[in-house]
């Protein structure tokens, strides 16, 4: 169901409600790596409103698979929104077949993004397909006075996002599984910074596999550094209505899609 924008949608938007699921024009699809694709779609609402760490629901044309495929926003240019995703199942397989000129239904931006402030130095600790939201974080932080970033990316194999994040981030450290992991990089960053007499007054924004993020949160805690972590969860609706995507926090169960996906290490008790 590619829902062409209906009178109902237009009516609600004109009354100031959020835009619902709608078709977005595919501007470009590129392959970045084995099974990793970049998809740019045109949606001025998303482009104007999507903050780093927020995501969109993408829906399939194949009506037999109706649940959303949530994807972090990887970057914004004009009214184009970029996603970067890996093919892991049938849905992402189908998304990888989109061509420019096609339409894909989207809903968003969804969720609570990273809390980003002026004048700060952020370490962006990403693993695998956790890097896209951190690219958007680098882009957003670049536009904020005095704030800057170091990307610290762990890949399975190819360093497919280094050149993309390099547009926005002053410095990129990256590693693949054969060489080590994100914690190794954090250690390296710290000793480099200490050696160079640079400030280690940083905050960590992280997204990646849970095990990695737990290790990052622990490393941050041990170094007295605050961390914000962007979680993944199986979702029903992705916009807060079905209570499917909950995660335990110190304040009880919270919805990853509405209260997150970004939580502080403190909130998670990590």
């Amino acid at each position, binding site marked *: 169901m590619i829902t062409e924008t209906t009178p109902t949608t237009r009516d*609600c938007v004109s009354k100031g409600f959020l835009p619902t699921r709608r078709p977005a024009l595919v501007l470009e699809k590129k392959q970045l790596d084995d099974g990793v694709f970049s998809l740019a779609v045109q949606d001025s609402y998303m482009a104007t409103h999507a903050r780093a760490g927020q995501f969109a629901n993408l829906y399939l044309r194949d009506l037999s698979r109706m649940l959303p495929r949530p994807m972090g926003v990887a970057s914004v240019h004009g009214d184009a929104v970029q996603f970067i995703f890996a093919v892991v199942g049938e849905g992402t397989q189908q998304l990888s077949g989109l061509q420019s000129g096609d339409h894909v239904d989207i809903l968003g931006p969804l969720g609570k993004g990273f809390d980003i402030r002026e004048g700060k130095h952020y370490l962006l600790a990403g693993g695998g397909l956790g890097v896209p939201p951190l690219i958007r974080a680098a882009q957003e932080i670049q536009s904020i006075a005095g704030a800057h970033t170091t990307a610290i990316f762990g890949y399975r194999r190819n360093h497919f996002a280094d050149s993309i994040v390099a547009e926005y981030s002053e410095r990129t450290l990256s590693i693949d599984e054969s060489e080590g992991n994100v914690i190794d990089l954090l250690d390296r960053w710290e000793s480099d910074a200490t050696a160079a007499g640079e400030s280690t007054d940083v905050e960590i924004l992280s997204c990646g596999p849970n095990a990695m993020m737990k290790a990052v949160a622990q490393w941050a805690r041990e170094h007295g550094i605050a961390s914000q972590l962007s979680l993944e969860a199986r979702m*029903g609706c992705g916009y807060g*209505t079905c209570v499917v*995507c909950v995660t335990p926090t110190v304040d009880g169960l919270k919805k990853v899609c509405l209260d997150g996906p970004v939580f502080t290490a403190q909130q998670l008790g990590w």
Partner: protein
Amino acid sequence: MVTEWKHSTVVAGVPWKNPVGTASGTFNLEACGRFFDVSEMGAISTKGVSPVPWDGNPTPRTVESPSGMVNAVGLQNPGVDHYLVDELPKLKALGALVVTNVAGHSDDDYAQVVEKLADSSADMLEINVSCPNVSHGGLSVGSDPLVLGHLIERLRPMTDKPMVVKLTPNVTDIVPIARAAVDAGADALSLINTLVGMSIDIETGKPFLGNVTGGVSGPAIKPIAVAMVWKTRQALPDIPIIGIGGIMSAEDALEHLYAGANAVEVGAAALVDPLAPLRIAHDLDILLDSRPQLAEKLRKGQTWR
């Protein structure tokens, strides 16, 4: 612009401005209220409320299935006291017609909730005796006419509010269950809740859902839901019925209405498009223009036979 609805309905004496409501568990004000004016809907059926807050089932709580989904939320909700000071007054302030869905693990649970709702601003109560995702109450109550009759007899005198009993499809024959509810005083029936289902992860050989089994909803169950509405309507010509199950479009809603429903509720469709319930209401308002007989019956609280 607020819609001038051309086609209304009546459920158990309560006028709905249009025949389309949201289905319980798929509407939450904080989330959905951002997308549309809730007063526009025929009715808003809210998430099942229990006497105390419930934590629900372990995650993962959903898995996709062909043209559907299996959910095992397990009725996580903040409890009736919270509901009475939060969701309900907010919905009423916005002008919504509220159907409060009542959950319980035992007869006493249901009674406690109904007691607290008796003097509330809720417009109707929907007693959920059909949730497949809780170990006691829910489905087990809804599949035995005697147990169900007993429960409804107890709840009925506790409030003047119209009482809808929400039935499960996981039964050999829905008719005796429906009849038991009606005989015990139910003012209306809503059907169907989800069908018990599960999915197994073929990489691990283990059930996918934290709760092992869950409830199937979405288009996949539409023909089953329509058959249950039809069968119930054939057996009970006069009881108001809210048709639920697999409604993704106004055409699907029409199928339920022609099967004998007085109104419908939209569930899974709302999860994949927040505006689906209102869009379906708008589209149905147009489709009913060319179906004056059906529209007339709905308006008068009668049903298609």
